[in-house]
């Protein structure tokens, strides 16, 4: 009868690094050290590359996400402005909490907020003696439309802000062959603000400029 243990293959214990290096000639030891150093360097480089890649990803994500979670940008702060159908006056001296950081002190600014989920918005402003411009800013930053009083017809600047779907519905409703006397501006996002800005060249122009921007009407265009 043969002993079971004798049938087991003999497993040699793996040589540790020290015994291995002792058993090696000097040239091989040098080569082993060089290989180990190269391995450590490669691991360090791998770690650095991984760190940089993750840091770049975090940088890109935070930059892209800031506008989505912002609550202090103009589009968020003034989205309820003009609820009474007329632009609200904003600026450096009206309310310090909502003062525009980089506003030109030589301008008067009126704002109407909009949310196109409630329907399209009709904007109408009267031009005057002072330079006036209207611009549409979207929530989260960006301006997608601007017009100056040079484009006014019979002293009136008028346009409709709407979503793509609302625009398509309106086009489908239009009668064939009938000329449409309505300027339609498609907004890329549903929320934003319409800004009226009048230049105040002299202090005596201030009241006129404020009346001009307050005169911007914003109402439903359904």
């Amino acid at each position, binding site marked *: 009868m043969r002993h079971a243990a004798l049938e087991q293959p003999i497993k040699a214990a793996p040589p540790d690094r020290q015994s291995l290096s002792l058993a090696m000639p000097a040239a091989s030891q040098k080569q082993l050290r060089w290989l180990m150093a*190269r*391995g450590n360097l*490669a*691991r360090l480089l791998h*770690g650095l590359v*991984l*760190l*940089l*890649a*993750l*840091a*770049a*990803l*975090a*940088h*890109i*994500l*935070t*930059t*892209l996400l*800031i*506008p989505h979670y*912002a609550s*202090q*940008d*103009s589009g968020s*702060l*003034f989205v309820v402005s003009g609820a009474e159908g007329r632009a609200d006056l904003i600026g*450096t001296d009206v309310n310090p909490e*909502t*003062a*525009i*950081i*980089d*506003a*030109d*002190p*030589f*301008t008067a*600014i009126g704002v109407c907020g909009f949310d196109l989920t409630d329907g399209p918005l009709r904007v109408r402003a009267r031009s005057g003696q002072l*330079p006036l*411009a209207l*611009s549409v*800013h979207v929530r*989260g*930053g*960006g*301006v*997608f*439309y*601007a017009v*100056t009083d*040079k484009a006014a017809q019979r002293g009136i600047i008028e346009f409709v802000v709407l979503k793509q779907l609302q625009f398509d519905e309106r086009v489908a409703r239009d009668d064939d062959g009938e000329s449409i006397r309505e300027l339609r501006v498609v907004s*890329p996002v549903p929320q934003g603000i319409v*800004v009226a*800005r009048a*230049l*105040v*060249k*002299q202090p005596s122009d201030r009241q006129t400029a404020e009346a001009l921007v307050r005169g911007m009407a914003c109402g439903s265009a359904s």
Partner: protein
Amino acid sequence: MAGVPSLFAPLTLPRRSRLDPVRPDLRTRYLIVLVLAALAAGIGSTWAVLGEKPPVGAVKLGPWQSFPRLGSADIDPYGRAILARGPHLPLATGEGIQLNAATDSAGATLSGSCRYRISGTTLPSRGWTLVVANGASRPLTGTDAAGLTDADVLTDEAGKLSITASPQMSSGNWLRLPQQARFELILRFYDTPVSSSISQLDPAALPRIDRLACEG
């Protein structure tokens, strides 16, 4: 892969003890530290580049600098993030252009301890304003507020202007500067035909800023 050292090769050797199941093993700890360091570096670098001005998209015209994409539909993500951090209303393309100067025409930082001459031509427009701002590009307010419009400035027969900017009152066209402080100049042109082609503008079409003298 044979021959290629694995990133985690030495870190997989110490196995987690069954007696200590809560303590993460060396590899998990390594990953946590790596992710936290990457998050700190990523968020920190975002914070660092989102100052008052975007890190990209600047148009340099002599001492003046403009960021025309801030007021357009193709605004870059950095510009969008900067606008999201506070109430800003940049001039829209077609509405006008804004130019900032933090240095004079020789490249030296603008300082309230010096006197400057702002001279040359201006762009065709319905009106322009020149405002003194602090080092963070925010217009000075209250009693420090200072600025001029085209209606305040007298020009010569050729339409060229010459403004003396200094803390002390000066004859002629004078722009008051803050005492001893670093400042910026913000020049805005309203309803100008060049607002959509500012990158092709010749710097000579804009006023120069020359330092005349400094105190101390």
